[in-house]
């Protein structure tokens, strides 16, 4: 028996995945190469934001290290596909996810013991240290200039058009959303959320709260590595600055908080808005993050639920998150 609701989701997914290459060939006026690039950047930002959401939304821990985790993935995949063994694109992505998970484990071991402002400082240190030293190492990125990264190929077909690559980016985002939905409902996902909401309560029902927090960071690190690598191959050029604290780690946390920490689709919406809104409003790209910064300050001081809560307020229905039996707090762990 086919569930019509799920059928609708599959339909949307197929249309969004297949349409960019077709549009760019048959109606280049609708989807130009530069528009496709912007959409690709927005999709990759959404994927990286979903990886941050695993830690901030489920485990309720601050992370300012996700830009660096994404950078680890991008450099791993970049080095493996461009230099040395020149492996296939998919192998590069898998390796990126593995390295990202290893980085996530490192952060998770720290996060087991820290919370709040202390965890913010520790993850910030991780991001800043990698950005300032490892990502600028000569063997990784020739110092400052960076590393040229190839687009994937299947046989003789190369995904050199941005519109073609956009399909891959959408595929990766869909994979992350699908996998997060399944992990969220699984035993481990519920244990992670329990540990995030109330560590004491989770321990009372036999959940090892500290270990669950570390698990969340490992899962999230794998997602970040994967999406960072996808981002790197989209840009075609991986530099330390792209994955720095100021330009990636900080905006990613801000996007998740603005999206509403408990809603996956609110986060995706916020990420798309972060990239697309300045362009739609005709604001210079360098002023774009100002919108995010102001909304972050507003969300933190006025309305904790972000975009998700705003829609709830406007329409009286929770459009993005299905209603819950248990209303839980939307605060980060103290």
């Amino acid at each position: 028996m086919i569930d019509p609701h799920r059928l609708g989701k599959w339909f949307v997914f197929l249309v969004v995945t297949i349409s960019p290459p077709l549009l760019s060939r048959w109606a280049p006026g609708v989807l130009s190469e530069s528009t496709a690039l912007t959409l690709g950047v927005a999709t990759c930002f959404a994927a990286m934001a979903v990886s941050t959401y695993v830690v901030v939304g489920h485990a309720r821990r601050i992370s300012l290290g996700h830009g660096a985790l994404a950078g680890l993935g991008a450099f791993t995949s970049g080095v493996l596909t461009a230099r040395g063994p020149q492996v296939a694109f998919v192998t590069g992505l898998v390796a990126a996810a593995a390295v990202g998970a290893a980085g996530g484990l490192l952060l998770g071991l720290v996060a087991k013991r820290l919370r709040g402002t202390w965890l913010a400082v520790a993850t910030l240190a991780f991001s800043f240290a990698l950005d300032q030293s490892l990502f600028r190492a000569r063997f990784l990125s020739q110092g400052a200039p960076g590393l040229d990264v190839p687009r994937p190929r299947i046989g003789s077909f190369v995904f050199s058009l941005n519109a073609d690559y956009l399909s891959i980016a959408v595929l990766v985002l869909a994979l992350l959303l699908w996998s997060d939905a399944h992990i969220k409902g699984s035993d481990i996902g519920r244990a992670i959320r329990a540990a995030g909401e109330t560590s004491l309560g989770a321990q009372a029902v036999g959940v090892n709260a500290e270990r669950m927090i570390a698990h969340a960071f490992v899962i999230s690190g794998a997602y970040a590595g994967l999406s960072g690598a996808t981002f790197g191959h989209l840009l075609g050029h991986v530099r330390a600055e792209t994955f720095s604290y100021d330009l990636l780690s900080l905006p990613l946390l801000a996007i998740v908080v603005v999206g509403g920490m408990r809603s996956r689709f609110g986060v995706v919406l916020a990420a798309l808005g972060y990239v697309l809104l300045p362009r739609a409003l005709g604001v210079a790209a360098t002023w774009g993050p100002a919108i995010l910064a102001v909304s972050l300050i507003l969300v933190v001081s006025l309305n904790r639920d972000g975009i998700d809560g705003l829609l709830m307020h406007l329409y009286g229905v929770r459009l993005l998150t299905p209603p819950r039996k248990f209303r839980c707090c939307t605060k980060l762990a103290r």
Partner: protein
Amino acid sequence: MIRSLVAGVAEGSIYGLLGLGIIVIHRNSRIFNLAHGHIGTLAVLSAGALDPKMWPWGAVFAVIIGGVVAAGFFRIVIERIEADDPSSMTVATLGLSLLLFVIMVNVRPSASVVPSPMASGVGIFGYQVSSSQLLAFATTVLISIALSLFFDRTKLGLATAGVSLDQTAAQMVGLPVRWISALSWAGGGAIAAAAVLFAAPVLGVIGPAFSTGMMVRGVAAAIVGGLERPFGALMGGVAVGVIDSVVGHFTVASSIPGLSTFILLTVVVTIIWLRPQGLLAAAPR
């Protein structure tokens, strides 16, 4: 080697000054002000304080702007967040840092090169300590002394910590909690501006990207110094400066740049990890 040690002490006193500002705010609100470097840099740049023609009024303006920005941010944003929610307060300071970063990137995009400190000065073990560095060292020591006296000997100073320890009790004994906290934030912002004012000529560069580095070193100095005593920040800053400079001395030819930052931050994270409640703090809650 000894030369880089002296250089480390000289630079470290500036990091100590940055750490002092972090401590002043942490003592009051129990959070790290992650917009510290951005407030200082914005204040110095907007006051034009690095222009020799503006001396000394530019410096005064910068300090005032730093204090006003930080105190205003407290009264407008931080105050609306419940006092028992340090995570949200930290995220709010992140929002401020992003906002100030964007403003600086757009108004003054490139890092401007500050004239290197005056050649006149005293040589110590072959390291030319400039007069601005001596001034920075003296200022840090003076502010540390003044702050320890203020915190330990005056009622107002005790109150700045008291309002965070028990806000309700502080209100019941009639303390103006909001104004005392705003005062702490103003102090933190003013010290940030002063520190950036000293740091810019020594490092020879100032700009938006530079402010995150300032904040990181300030937080590092505060954490190494133990977050409680003003003199701890001075010691912590000197330790940070010495690590930075000595490791930099040995790894100058390494293929990985910024190793000193890497090692410094590893030390800091290890300290946080071993003592999550702070170096000199009492037992965890």
